[in-house]
């Protein structure tokens, strides 16, 4: 399988990465090189093979559903590019 320029733009948008028209051919070449490389997986017989979900056999740990941390709003906000009081500021999303 290989990707065309339209698909490259669509993937970039899905990944929320802006690409310029000038970057598209280069990216298309690189992505196709990677897809060609992984193509060899199609020769493996995977009939009846379970997909790996956990590399070490372990039971999912659970804990009580209780608040065990908090009151650190200042810590959480301190690296944000734009804040007001204890809110993150973003460009307007509702008209």
């Amino acid at each position, binding site marked *: *399988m290989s*990707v065309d320029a339209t*698909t*490259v733009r669509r*993937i*970039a*948008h*899905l*990944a*929320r*990465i*802006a*690409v310029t028209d000038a970057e598209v051919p280069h*990216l298309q070449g*690189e*992505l196709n*090189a*990677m*897809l060609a*490389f*992984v*193509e*060899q*997986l*199609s020769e*493996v017989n*995977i009939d009846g*093979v*379970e*997909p*790996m*979900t*956990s*590399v*070490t056999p*372990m039971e*999912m*740990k659970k*804990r009580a559903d209780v608040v065990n941390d908090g009151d*650190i709003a200042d*810590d*959480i906000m*301190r*690296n*944000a*590019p*734009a804040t007001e009081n204890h809110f*993150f500021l*973003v*460009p*307007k*999303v509702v008209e």
Partner: protein
Amino acid sequence: MTDLTSLTIAEARDGLASKSFTSLELTDAHLAAMEAARSLNAFILETPDKARAMARAVDEKIAKGEGGPLAGIPLGIKDLFATRDVRTTACSKILGNFVPPYESTVTSQLWRDGAVMLGKLNNDEFAMGSSNETSCFGPVVNPWRREGSNTALVPGGSSGGSASAVAALLCMGATATDTGGSIRQPAAFTATVGVKPTYGRCSRWGIVAFASSLDQAGPIARSNRDAAILLRSMAGHDPKDTTSVDIAVPDYEAAIGKSVKGMKIGIPKEYRLDGMPAEIEKLWSEGAAWLKAAGAELVEVSLPHTKYALPAYYIVAPAEASSNLARYDGVRYGLREPGRNIIDMYEKTRASGFGAEVRRRVMIGTYVLSAGYYDAYYLRAQKVRTLIKKDFEDCFAKGVTAILTPATPSAAFGVGEKGGADPIEMYLNDIFTVTVNMAGLPGIAVPAGKDAQGLPLGLQLIGRPFDEETLFSLGEVIEQAAGHFTAPKWW
């Protein structure tokens, strides 16, 4: 007094205990070495004030007989580990001036045991790379050079700063992380010892995530013993990481010098590649001969799905990365580029904050997870991963204790020499190491010799799950036979 920076951790521990020198003296010697070696670009942030304060505090503890297992030992920390109140960037522009209000579990355990932080070490951006050339702080230079040449060589990656700093005697040991070979490949390129522990052995909490099912922290040091000392402090259960395993941490150092007599060591025939340099082949046979001389039994084994590990990795790892890196959106931390609306802001922020390699991997990961392609790529890769793991399980079920392979297909290469035209050329560096991450197993890279140009080469040992001790015992046999390698100082 001998140069304090040339001591091993084990020797420094003895010197501190016998009051031959203080941690402050040891720390100052390393801070001076770091300053003199800035041309290597291994440290991207030096923290001398913090280092001296930590050293003074630990000297007081040592005086009272309260020093921990790493009391007074100065270490470097890969910039992937969050360090409280100390800038942590994963060497990406997108994290900008991120200053974590928390400490990673692994580093907090090092400080608990008395270690001293010298600063933060360079790495490939988000640990994506095999040469440390994708860092937003620029490439790291390997202290090793080809004989009679001034060409700057890469230290490998992604833990290139860690490997370079340890090899150049700038720190006594360093933390590192390994997703596809990022501890073992740089260790092999710099004649250092690098350990990728079993998945779940070290907590991933507070380590910037790349591919969560593959990422694992481990040490880079100048001897097997030093690596064993560091791993004991780094490992252990952490309730904050649900994949960290709740089993006791052994005294890895006790495994150093233990007999390997009767151990069955597998030599996988699939690792004998067409066109493999003769010196790598020779090194591998030499390693096998050393283990045999120490009483181990060598057996040829087969890991039939080896060749599919790297392609499967380049689906699984980018897929997980695209998900993990979705958090860098210019809202809660790091860089923000202004945009017409919120989507435009996300897209501009991520285009400007991520480097080329990271953008490429996030995009391929997005593609293989997207509707219509998930089964053909991601699901298939996860099934192949099951088969890769089964290869190893079959091998261990036949009584094989550990597997010996070359660590890398070549010695260190020049800065700017690889991957410019074709990303796959760079990815092939991890061909011998990536299987271990796919199977969640422990692996160690040990210096074993030099190539014709005088550059270090390493061997890799792969162990059963949670049997790092055996790897240290076998690694020590190779270390004793191969000797130690120190880069001639030119910087």
